[in-house]
């Protein structure tokens, strides 16, 4: 491992005699470029606005049916200069991928290419109406169709539903298709099996679709216990929901075996594809017996997370489930073949019932996350089949590099289960006293890193799930490893300053208990 600074770069902080870094208080609470910002409602006014619109003609007649507003709404406005400053300051209180390493396991915080942002904003994509006559949106329908083709080829599966709005919505789509398929053959079932290590959306989704959820136990090495799973299969089991690679960062070696057993028992196999980025371009889930899998375009295909969304969760289907896919979907009408003007595209919606087949219906008002489709397709075209394979390989390489650079001092419960995939799981077993994963996470914040995912999955004590992604340089990884090792050492030595971390963030630790006990969820003028 190289030292992260082999050059003239000298970032080290000078430290006072007490080991602390000092500065005087300011009247504003600001610290140079770290600026405090009040709430909008504390600086805005009802009569202030950042737009110039015609004044209201109070005498104009209206046709509002007698329901015109009489009370103020309670909004306030800012002029444009104040608005830009308000949000610029707020933004500077955030960490993002653009700032630094963001190894949030399961979340795939990879670089968001700027070309994707640019192309998604072309008026031909951004400024078209979902119900525009289809002859005026052929290019948009073509993008949906092309992206669907890519997803089917990359997964080796014959069907795709494009409308789900995010991963959890995709899960719902897959589970509803399973349910519809069972219902169609007159064999409604009640139970869906889900591993303990699964993401919370899996059991929540199954329950929302009306299923009873039962746990699948795991083996010592962090994988599904195949024998126990097989033993549980039966006529009441509609299917399984398995994440592969799983949330411990391991490939489920026996996935094919499991799938065969589930199929044999009349069930279907749902694969949570949130971790598809570990294998994209190298392994096709269709070859493993999957019946339905959602793909988070906002993870594997790098559409930005945007501080919580939006995402996009298309679902690929096996032959068995494809007919039940939700409305609407795009179909291609091959053209006369005479050049580019050839093909045309149309939507299968409620109106063309014949083509709809046994579709279970509509999941959302329109056709899905077009803004994410354009970004994801741009990303795929940029990488190509070769680049996507390299994406998976580099992601896995980076995670293993971290695993092997840390395992000597940080508890890595599955270090002996073989290579990890795109993420690696650690635990806080060896920390001193009451120091825990939380303290380590906050210590990393001071070091300039976003912490890893903590306390998930639930199968390891003080879980720390580190997902570096492929868009990190070795120098970044090395710097992270150095910093992480130093914080781990502090945690193992019982360094109590860690309990107070972070010191340098816009806020010190926040009181979450009070927040939940006396929820204040909306601003009100102080008395």
């Amino acid at each position, binding site marked *: 491992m190289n030292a992260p600074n082999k050059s003239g770069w000298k970032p080290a902080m000078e430290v006072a005699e007490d080991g602390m870094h000092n500065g005087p208080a300011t009247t504003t609470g600001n610290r140079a470029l770290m600026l405090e910002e009040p709430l909008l409602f504390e600086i805005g006014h009802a009569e202030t606005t950042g737009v110039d619109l015609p004044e209201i003609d109070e005498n104009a007649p209206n046709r509002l049916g007698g329901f015109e*507003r009489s009370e103020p709404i309670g909004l306030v406005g800012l002029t444009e200069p104040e608005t830009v400053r308000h949000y610029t300051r707020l*933004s500077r209180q955030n960490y993002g991928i653009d700032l630094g390493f963001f190894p949030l396991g399961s979340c795939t915080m990879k670089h968001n290419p700027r070309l994707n942002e640019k*192309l998604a904003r072309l008026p031909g994509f951004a400024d078209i109406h979902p119900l525009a006559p289809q002859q005026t949106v052929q290019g948009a329908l073509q993008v949906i169709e092309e992206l669907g083709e890519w997803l089917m080829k990359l997964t080796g599966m014959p069907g795709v539903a494009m409308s789900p*709005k*995010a991963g959890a919505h995709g899960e719902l789509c897959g589970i509803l298709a399973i349910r519809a398929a069972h219902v169609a053959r007159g064999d409604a079932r009640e139970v869906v099996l889900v591993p303990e290590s699964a993401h919370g*959306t899996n059991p929540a989704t199954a329950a929302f679709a009306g299923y009873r959820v039962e746990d699948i136990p795991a083996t010592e090495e962090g994988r599904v216990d195949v024998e126990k799973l097989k033993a549980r299969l039966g006529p009441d089991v509609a299917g399984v929901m398995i994440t592969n690679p799983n949330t411990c960062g391991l490939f489920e070696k026996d996935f094919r075996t499991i799938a065969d057993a589930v199929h044999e028992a009349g069930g279907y196999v749902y694969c949570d594809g949130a971790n598809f980025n570990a294998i994209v371009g190298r392994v096709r889930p269709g070859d493993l017996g999957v019946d339905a899998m959602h793909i988070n375009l906002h993870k594997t295909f790098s559409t930005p997370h945007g501080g919580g*969304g939006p995402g996009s969760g298309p679902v690929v289907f096996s032959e068995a489930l494809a007919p039940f896919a939700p409305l609407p979907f795009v179909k291609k009408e091959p053209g006369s073949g005479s050049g580019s003007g050839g093909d045309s595209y149309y939507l299968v*919606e409620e109106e063309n019932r014949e083509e709809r087949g046994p579709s*279970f219906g509509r999941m959302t008002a329109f056709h899905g996350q077009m803004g994410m489709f354009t970004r994801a397709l741009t990303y795929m*075209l940029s990488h190509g089949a070769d680049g996507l394979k390299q994406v998976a390989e580099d992601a896995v390489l980076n995670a293993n590099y971290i695993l092997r650079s840390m395992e000597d001092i940080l508890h890595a419960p599955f270090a002996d289960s073989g290579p990890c995939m795109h993420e690696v799981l650690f635990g806080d077993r060896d920390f001193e006293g009451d120091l825990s994963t939380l303290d380590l996470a906050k210590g990393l914040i001071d070091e300039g890193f976003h912490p890893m995912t903590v306390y998930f999955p639930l199968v390891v004590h003080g879980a720390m799930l580190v997902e570096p992604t492929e868009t990190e340089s070795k120098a970044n990884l090395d710097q992270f490893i150095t910093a992480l090792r130093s914080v781990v050492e502090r945690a193992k030595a019982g360094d109590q300053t860690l309990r107070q971390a972070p010191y340098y963030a816009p806020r010190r630790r926040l009181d979450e208990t009070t927040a939940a006990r006396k929820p204040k969820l909306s601003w009100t003028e102080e008395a």
Partner: protein
Amino acid sequence: MRYLPLTDTDRSEMLEKIGAKSIDDLFVDVPEVAQLDGPIHGLPMHAGEMSVERHMKARAAKNLAAGDAPFFLGAGAYRHHVPATVDTVIQRGEFLTAYTPYQPEIAQGTLQMLFEFQTQVARLYGCAVANASLYDGSTACWEAVAMATRVTKRKRAVLSGSLHPHYAEVVKTMAQFTGDEIADAHPAITPDVDLDGLIARIDEDTACVVVQYPDILGRVCDLSKVADAAHEKGALLVAVNTEPVALGALKSPGEMGADFVVGEGQSIGVGLQFGGPYLGLFAVRDPKHVRQMPGRLCGETVDAEGRRGFVLTLSTREQHIRREKATSNICTNSGLCALAFNVHMTLLGEKGLRELAAENHRLACRAADRLAQVPGVDVLNNSFFNEFTLMLGGKPAREIVRDLADRGVLGGVSLGRLYPGVEALEHALLVAVTEMTSEEDIETLASELETLVKETA
């Protein structure tokens, strides 16, 4: 490759550290059957920016952008002017490339924004608390129905006939699986909403009544009547709004007694985007319902030094804590769209939103008057905000819309498309007018309609 920082030297150094001979060693756990022998067939290889840009631009060029034609489409998605500042803000890397704010000390930007957003939505809707967004109006509508069944422990939802048909479809899709009972209907082609008919359908088993305001035909109705009727039967009123700008001119649903107010926020800051990503808004009038709400909530608290700060809170409602007992399975929501809404609404403010609403209504009235003059065209509505229904002579409206498009006019949404096969609705055309609509646009639509209706009458 431009997005992959590892060099070949890095790769071999790292493999060595790991103790692997080649990258294949790290994929040993993949069974033989699923091992491929190279890049997946049938897909192109990597490409530079220029060529990808050409590919995508060729597709964009095949679409008729709303800005390039007289434009009158609505029906749940509206074209409004979005100030340039909105896009500048949402492209700040610190907002764009952040995750859900699970580490609040370094996510105060997103969190404070969400707190402001929640406050704006709650006030606009006349409610106590709004959440941090859902996917879109239609899924918000379904979440509201689901929540109403949880709160009332009843299983029947009564949908107004003039609820957006796609919203109704989403609710019905879910109900197929959850066993809830959905009572719905088609809209009646009448100048006013038939509230009595709706009220008559509420019974003691009804969990909620779902009413759109303004409705799919653009009509404005007296929600408080429905609220009273529902409450009398122990049912809840879910009000659905697909055009938030309308609430700059109309009484809020909360004020009129709706219990849950949900809707689409796309009009403010988000844009058309062919239907997504959009912005699901969800609010409750009574704070006692907060712990049954779906989705994330941001709340105020203090840090260890006593300074105000914000956190995600009440997460015991959510899937990542509560798993199969969660109030919803939603995880990723519409965060960045909420930011766009928040920024746009901040620029508008009370004054701007009211002016915007007034301008929309003024132009819509103008358009309605002008179009009513076209022979063979009638305006159905007694009341409307910025969208109304035309009854057309001649061919079905669906075909007229296509003919208009051939003439370069995006003339509206036909009810024939929204309610395929319902003959009574075949000649109805929904026309939306916003501040983006010019007098020339209205004139063009009037004269083109005149030609088309005459031709086929």
